[in-house]
């Protein structure tokens, strides 16, 4: 069972040397002695959306948190293999993880606005990066909020607490906060799992817009959502990448029997 894209598929989906944004090679990940990810190989094209699906505990969130090395905050973890973004290994010793995280934004499953005003939330990333120019910050905050489709709803109360926003608005605020520092890759960890259908639809619409500028990796529990928003879909199970292909193919004509059983709802 080979999880790499075959050459002809690469061609048919227009993978070229120049448009590969992220490249994962023989990647293994361990929590202490438990192996959470096994021999993952995967390539992600620039300006596409990759959906990661799989049953709970299959390692999809762990995988996502590797791209910005958020797993570094956990003790006793270990990894083998490479993940390269734009050809640069993110585990390189000379690489500053702070720079990596500026380049790879992340939105968490549970919206986590800081207990500050809406404006301060979005400006946070700029301020910690030492930007002091008020005009620039104001401009960037506005742009980020527009990009995350939140501007119209909050423009009159930018200096009110972010906690006063609804769940869906808070999640879009978190997206705006990530966009403000202009990353190239955006990681979304089940961004809509706690939201109602209308708020979810807004987030999905947003993802469609955002992929023009960003490369997006989204973990989702919801297969319809993966089918709707992603260009490529990766199916994980028990720490293994079972199948990775164009979304349409995964959902209509998967090559692997397990994938088929999962996407048709026979287990999971």
């Amino acid at each position, binding site marked *: 069972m080979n999880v790499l894209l075959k050459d002809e598929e690469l061609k048919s989906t227009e993978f070229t040397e120049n448009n590969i944004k992220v490249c994962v090679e023989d990647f293994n990940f361990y929590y202490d002695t438990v192996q959470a990810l096994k021999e993952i190989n995967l390539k992600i094209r620039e300006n596409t959306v990759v959906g990661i699906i799989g049953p709970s505990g299959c390692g999809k969130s762990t995988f996502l948190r590797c791209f*910005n090395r958020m797993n570094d905050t956990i003790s006793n973890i270990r990894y083998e293999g490479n993940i390269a973004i734009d050809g640069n290994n993110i585990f390189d010793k000379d690489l500053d993880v702070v720079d990596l995280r*500026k380049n790879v934004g992340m939105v968490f499953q549970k919206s986590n606005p800081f207990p500050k005003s809406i404006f301060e939330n979005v400006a*946070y990333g700029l301020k910690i990066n030492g930007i002091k120019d008020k005009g620039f910050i104001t401009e960037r905050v506005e742009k980020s909020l527009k990009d995350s489709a939140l501007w119209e709803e909050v423009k009159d109360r930018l200096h009110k607490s972010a906690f006063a926003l609804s769940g869906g608005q808070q999640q879009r605020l978190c997206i705006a906060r990530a966009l403000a520092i202009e990353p190239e890759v955006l990681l979304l960890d089940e961004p809509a799992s706690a939201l109602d259908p209308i708020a979810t639809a807004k987030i999905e619409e947003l993802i469609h817009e955002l992929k023009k500028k960003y490369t997006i990796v989204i973990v989702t529990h919801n297969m319809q959502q993966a089918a709707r928003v992603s260009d490529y879909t990766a199916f994980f199970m028990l720490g293994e990448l079972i199948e990775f292909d164009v979304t349409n193919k995964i959902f209509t004509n998967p090559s692997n029997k397990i994938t088929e059983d999962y996407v048709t709802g026979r287990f999971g």
Partner: protein
Amino acid sequence: MEQFIGFMFLRICIVLVLLALAIILFDIFKKGSATINWEFLSAMPRKGMTEGGIFPAIIGTFFVTIITALLSIPLGMGCAIYLNEYAKKGKLTRLIRMSIRNLSGVPSIVYGLFGVVLFVQMFQLDTSILSAGLTLGLMTLPWTITASEEALKNVPQSYRDGSLALGATKWQSIRTNVLPHAIPGMLTGAILGLSRAAGETAPILFTGAAFYLPFLPKSFSDQFMALPYHLYIMSTQHHAIEKVRPIAYGTALVLIVLIFCMNLVAIITRYKLRKVRME
């Protein structure tokens, strides 16, 4: 029925505790308030402490508490930040944390003797406000560290993750996104620790508190009188205990009010800081 018995039991517990507290407070208030007047608070003790006031003891306690605060608050908060945010979670950290918890249970007289050896003799600070304050500071440290760590633990992990994911360094994340939410709790713990230190007798017994000094300390290297020690002498060591009983009650009342005020400050600080944050 079972629930009724359970609730009754819990109710009796709380009534018993409050009753005991109320009786003590009432007794001290009743007997102490007769002694309290402006002279008692502002005058020097006279005639072998059988007359006059307790002013030097109030001042002494005040300055000792300042030294205690200067040592225990910054050091305690620093330790707590390191332990909770930076230290790797392993056997060593667990051991250190356990030792700190145990230190807060060490009898205060042991700190007193330790203070004599370390500050009075080794550092040659003599029996002074400084020695006593530092000894009390050491005694309060485990308390401050534990309280500060609890406050840090109460800050949701998502605040840290959120800022780290935006490219904040660990320190930036702690400074801008963790400390603002932990400071109220940290301060509350620190002030409660101080109020406990202010009421301690044993640690200052050998390190600087004086039996009878009818004048004020001129510097931090002078001996001093302190409220709790004064109270101890008035109730057990004085040559005319029955005669000075009212002064002892008055001193007790002043000490209790002082500590109550400190706790009040702790509560108000926490409330104010919390309110600012929620807006």
